[in-house]
């Protein structure tokens, strides 16, 4: 964003001081919030304010329940049923909160995106590494989103040649032609449909007593043990679908583009917590659904969205299958929208060009085009026939966790930078929890790597 050029129309505010370029839309969003805050408080204004303040947190966490995540949770439920992974989702929600809350503070205090801070604070050399990690992980993750869109559409009788290009066009439209507020509202509207998996789980008539007992340690039996390759790949994949590099870049830039300031951090935390509750509920619902319908599938790698849809149709009927297919398409669509935005923001910030969804496309082609091209590459790739979709999905989730520790280290360093953060610097306890998460990620992945290369290393 050019901070030298003042563009606020003098007719709008003759006495206003000159403003940095392209802040008009953000200013309007802030004025709207301000008007709601200063209005007479009743349930309507409180509701309107609450709704206005949600955005980055809900989007990042419901976008996190993407098509790849849906398949991963289904693979988990199919393999381990109502077991250890159900309560583990609450733990993963806590992990996601610890990680994502830091991006809220960083964005609100510095008013700069994640990529911008890495590039400016640590230089282009390390900046390139983080950007390449992000773009590679994003394109791979977007492939899993388009796989979900393709298979969900096919289950509803729609050709992949219709659903995939139409989704790509829609994602392009909302990012390029809508300004931040409208983009955020439309994305939130789509994201809410992520909750479609909750009634699906209810309709599968699970044994609620057994579900409740998993939270007190019942059914935590892991066939093959905690060091089996299947458990290790699933634990890595579940972590990978809960925290991923794109989420750091996305939420911080989203906080900046929404115009949130230090006084909005509490609201940002509530927004994030709401998103995490949604994420955990949906993840649990899919695991319960899969435990009811898919339990006992011999090879987890064979479980892909197509198989899940087929089994749901045979056990719960066409209506439930159609709902799951819609949920899968929605999950792919919302994740594609937010991941494409994260690429755009990161690239714009890294190369110090216009980097706001409030900027019209004619002024910011360099901001929009690379991200759209990356998404188009992913869309084209999933049209390749005979891809092993189930295993591809697991592999992509694991790769997300591989890139995560390096991304988290930059985040931690920035959060401990008193010159940038002032009083909002990380507490020692939060640092300790964050480092434990990073070490946990590395240990999980390393065990998976050893078990993959040496299948008998852990007695398997």
């Amino acid at each position, binding site marked *: 964003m050019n901070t030298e050029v003042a563009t606020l129309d003098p007719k709008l505010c003759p*006495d206003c001081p000159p403003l940095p370029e392209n802040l008009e839309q953000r200013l309007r969003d802030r004025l709207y919030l301000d008007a709601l805050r200063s209005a007479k408080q009743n349930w309507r204004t409180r509701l309107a304010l609450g709704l206005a303040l949600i955005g980055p947190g809900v989007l990042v966490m419901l976008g996190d329940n993407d098509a790849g995540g849906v398949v991963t949770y289904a693979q988990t439920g199919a393999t381990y049923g109502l077991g250890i992974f159900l309560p583990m989702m609450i733990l993963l929600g806590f992990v996601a909160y610890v990680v994502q809350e830091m991006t809220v503070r960083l964005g609100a205090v510095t008013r*700069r995106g994640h990529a911008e801070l890495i590039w400016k604070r640590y230089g282009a050399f390390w900046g390139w590494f983080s950007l390449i990690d992000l773009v590679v992980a994003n394109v791979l993750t977007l492939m899993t989103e388009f796989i979900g869109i393709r298979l969900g559409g096919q289950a509803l009788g729609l050709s992949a040649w219709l659903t995939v290009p139409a989704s790509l066009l829609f994602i392009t439209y909302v990012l390029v032609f809508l300004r931040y507020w409208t983009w955020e509202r439309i994305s939130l509207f789509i994201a809410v449909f992520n909750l479609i998996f909750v009634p699906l789980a209810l309709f599968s008539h699970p044994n609620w007593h057994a579900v409740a007992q998993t939270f007190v340690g019942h059914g935590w039996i892991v066939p093959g043990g905690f060091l089996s390759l299947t458990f290790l790949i699933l634990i890595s994949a579940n972590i990978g679908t809960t925290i991923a590099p794109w989420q750091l870049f996305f939420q911080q830039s989203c906080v900046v583009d929404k115009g949130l300031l230090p006084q909005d951090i509490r609201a940002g935390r509530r927004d994030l917590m709401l998103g995490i509750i949604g994420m955990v509920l949906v993840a649990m619902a899919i695991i319960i659904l899969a435990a009811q319908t898919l339990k006992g599938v011999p090879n987890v790698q064979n479980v892909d969205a197509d198989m899940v849809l087929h089994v749901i149709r045979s056990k719960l009927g066409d209506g439930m299958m159609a709902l799951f297919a819609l949920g899968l398409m929605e999950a792919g669509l919302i994740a594609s929208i937010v991941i494409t935005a994260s690429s755009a923001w990161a690239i714009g910030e890294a190369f110090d060009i216009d980097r706001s969804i409030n900027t019209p496309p004619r002024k910011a082609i360099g901001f929009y085009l690379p991200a759209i091209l990356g998404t188009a590459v992913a869309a084209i790739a999933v049209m390749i026939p005979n891809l092993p979709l189930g295993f591809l999905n697991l592999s992509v989730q694991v790769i997300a966790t591989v890139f995560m520790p390096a991304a988290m*280290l930059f985040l931690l360093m920035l959060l401990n930078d008193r010159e940038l953060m002032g009083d909002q610097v990380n507490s020692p306890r939060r640092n300790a929890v964050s480092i434990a998460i990073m070490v946990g990620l590395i240990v999980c992945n390393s065990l998976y790597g050893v078990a993959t290369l040496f299948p008998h290393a852990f007695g398997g």
Partner: protein
Amino acid sequence: MKHLHEFDPADIRRLIEREGWEKPLAPVQRVHLTTRQQAVFWGLRIYVVVMTAVVVWAFLHGAAG
């Protein structure tokens, strides 16, 4: 939502000044990583390369099998 021109100019000015939108962002100065920090980052780069190779190998191996 209202357009910017529908807001009272006095409200616009008050908000700009209260929230500091007219002030340019403070520049972010470059800092150099210490040797220890660089060692950790290079370690993580090696970890990323090795683990990515393992995942790709597993994918190709699993896909072929």
